[in-house]
């Protein structure tokens, strides 16, 4: 494949829970590759696990 024909569309998301980056490559407008890397910043609190009293 002639990689010069690929269009690269990177992206990112940053919030309290995660920092995420992704790389998308398109060939003639069609997505042919997408990778993503999610870095968790802290545990999303479905249940905090905190005991309120000692």
């Amino acid at each position, binding site marked *: 494949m002639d990689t010069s024909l690929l269009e690269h569309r990177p992206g990112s998301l940053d919030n309290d829970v995660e920092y995420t980056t992704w790389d998308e490559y398109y060939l003639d407008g069609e997505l042919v590759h997408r990778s993503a890397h999610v870095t968790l910043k802290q545990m999303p609190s479905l249940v905090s696990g905190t*005991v309120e009293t000692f």
Partner: protein
Amino acid sequence: MCTSFMGELMTATHNFTTGTGNTFKAALYFASATVNAATTAYSTTGEVTNTSGTGYTAGGVTVTNGTSPTATNSSATAGVAYWTPTASFQWTALTVNTAFDAVLIYNSSASNKAVSVHTFGSQTITAGTFTLTMPSNTTSSALLRLSTT
């Protein structure tokens, strides 16, 4: 953190000791699946499946446990115990065109009992790699934290 897991801590169901402890695994779930604090065990229902190829295997990947849990006091009446896997979870040569947004950590040495569910922004992967990197293993950001205040 799954509610059943907190109860199971009181019955010594889970052992996070490095080397001699249990084996934990991490499985991905579609955004349409119901995995939350009420999840008690791993299930294939709603688990990610390959759109094409074989990049994802049912059951997920084995969690690397290079550091045993740490417990520390912050005062005479407060403290925290915490643990974080020591390597990222990664799937390569993966194609999943249906959005997924959650990972379930479970204990494959103890009847696949659930430990915790962690959600993130929905993702799809096309002939690529999905990497889930853990937070820093500290009192305030570790993946699993049990604390008194």
